[in-house]
């Protein structure tokens, strides 16, 4: 930030500075009137805004090669979650290689604050927030409580 300085007498006279300001805005007016060169707006539904790969969006559950979820119901994500929006019911895994699997895995998206701590905590790389889904909307509040099937279906 610049240090506050004394105004010169031209600046204190006020009118030349008004004209200078008007020239700036008038330049923007005419440039955008004829070329739309400097317009920053994305016309969203028609025009996609480029999203960074790090952008945290809707959650999804990662799958193994056989199609089952990578989640082993270790409860680390549910424990670390600051808004307590992950609810897991664990069950004994039918696959002998793993001890547990989530019978249900529910994310209450209305409570989620998109901090991404669940993704960092997961040791199995099972929960991810890389769907890049911007158009996540629904008509009723119940539709924002994502079940395991919805999380896997991406």
């Amino acid at each position, binding site marked *: 930030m610049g240090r506050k300085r004394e105004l010169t007498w031209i600046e204190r006279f006020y009118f030349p500075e008004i004209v200078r300001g*008007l020239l700036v805005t008038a330049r*923007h*007016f005419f440039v*955008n009137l004829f070329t739309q060169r*400097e*317009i920053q*707006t994305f016309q969203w539904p028609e025009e996609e805004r480029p999203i960074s790969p790090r952008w945290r969006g809707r959650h999804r559950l990662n799958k193994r090669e056989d199609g089952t979820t990578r989640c082993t119901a270790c409860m680390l994500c549910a424990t670390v979650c600051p808004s307590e929006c992950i609810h897991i019911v664990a069950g004994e895994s039918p696959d002998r290689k793993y001890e547990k699997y989530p019978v249900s895995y529910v994310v209450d998206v209305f409570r989620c604050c998109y901090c991404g701590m669940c993704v960092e905590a997961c040791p199995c790389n099972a929960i991810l927030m890389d769907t890049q889904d911007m158009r996540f909307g629904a008509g009723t509040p119940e539709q924002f409580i994502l079940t395991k099937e919805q999380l896997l279906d991406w």
Partner: protein
Amino acid sequence: MPLTLDDTLHLLISLVWVLVVFGAVLTLAGFLTWVERKMSAIMQDRIGPNRANVRLFRNWRLFGLFHIMADPVKLFFKEDFIPAGANRVLHTLAPIISLAVPLSVFAVIPFAGPLQIHWKDLAAAQIPLVGRFFPGDTLHLSDFLVTFQVADLNVGILFIFAVSSLAIYGTMLGGWASNNKFSFLGSMRAASQMISYEVGLGLAVVGVVMVYGAVSLSTIVTRQGELWLGIIPKWGVITQPLGFLLFLACGMAEIKRAPFDLPEGESEIIAGFFTEYSSAKMMMFMFGEFVEWIVLGTVVATLFFGGWQVPYLSSHGINIPLLKIELLWTGFSYVQQHPLALQLVQVGVTAVQAGAFAVKVLFFVWLIGLVRWTLPRFRYDQVMKMGWKMVLPLALINIVATGVLLLCEQNLKPILQKVLGY
């Protein structure tokens, strides 16, 4: 005294101008609701309203022009609300005043030069239907003057001030009758601001009245067509540069536009005097504000930018004395041969003048919008300080300086004319 046929025609023409002026002003005001948002948007590198559309065989958007239709429809279907404890009559009267008052200013604005008609006299009996009402009268079309002005009052400027001061009743009544503290505070702010700047506004115009020696707007505009030193048009902005700046600043304070939009202030007093208004009444307040915007543009163009004057162009021809350029319409052989050609050329000149006036008004409307979206708003004490400590003394100095310069010009003019030889 019975009405003669000539008078009747003058009256009818005036009525036509009433319709034309109202139509033009209200159409422009309607467009301004869109222009204001679109203009602010593109000045701030945004796009602005563009979603309202009409689905015919294609999806028409037209840069969001349909918002002009969509907004009033939406507002009309809102609940018309009068708060408890409000004075119902005054609460309803306030928006009517604040819309009707600025509209009536346009009655005295000349929007094109007078047109002299030299055709032929028509006896009333020759015209179907009319002969029965005016027996024995004639229509003197051989020498008939069409003025492009609803009413050519000889106190034009005073009429503008008298009427535009009434606008304060709209805001005062609106704020007081709402029975709401925020509304009342807003209207108090509006009242003190408008009264303070009315003084500066009036004094800024005195210079113009001195220079052109008239308060009639048609006379002022006609005299602005004169040339100074034979080349510079004597527009108000050249004879009264300080007066112009003061008038524009005071005018913007008077119509409560940013940077002087203190009567409204979302973070302080909600919407100010029209907090308690909804539906069509709120729309009338908004519309009145847009009409006042056009009023200011029109008055500034009339008083300081030559009104309908196009430099060097008149109904006789093009004339620049200093460069010895003189082009008379009657000098063309084609015009001499055809009796109606001169008349047509003069009609064309009038049309050009009306077009020039429209361009000037639109330019000032644009400029006022530009100022609104450029300058941050003043603090309330700054507005008052500027009104009484800056604008008022400057306006008084302007009057004195104008008087001194007028005396000098009167004494120096013969010498200058001799030196420059025109």
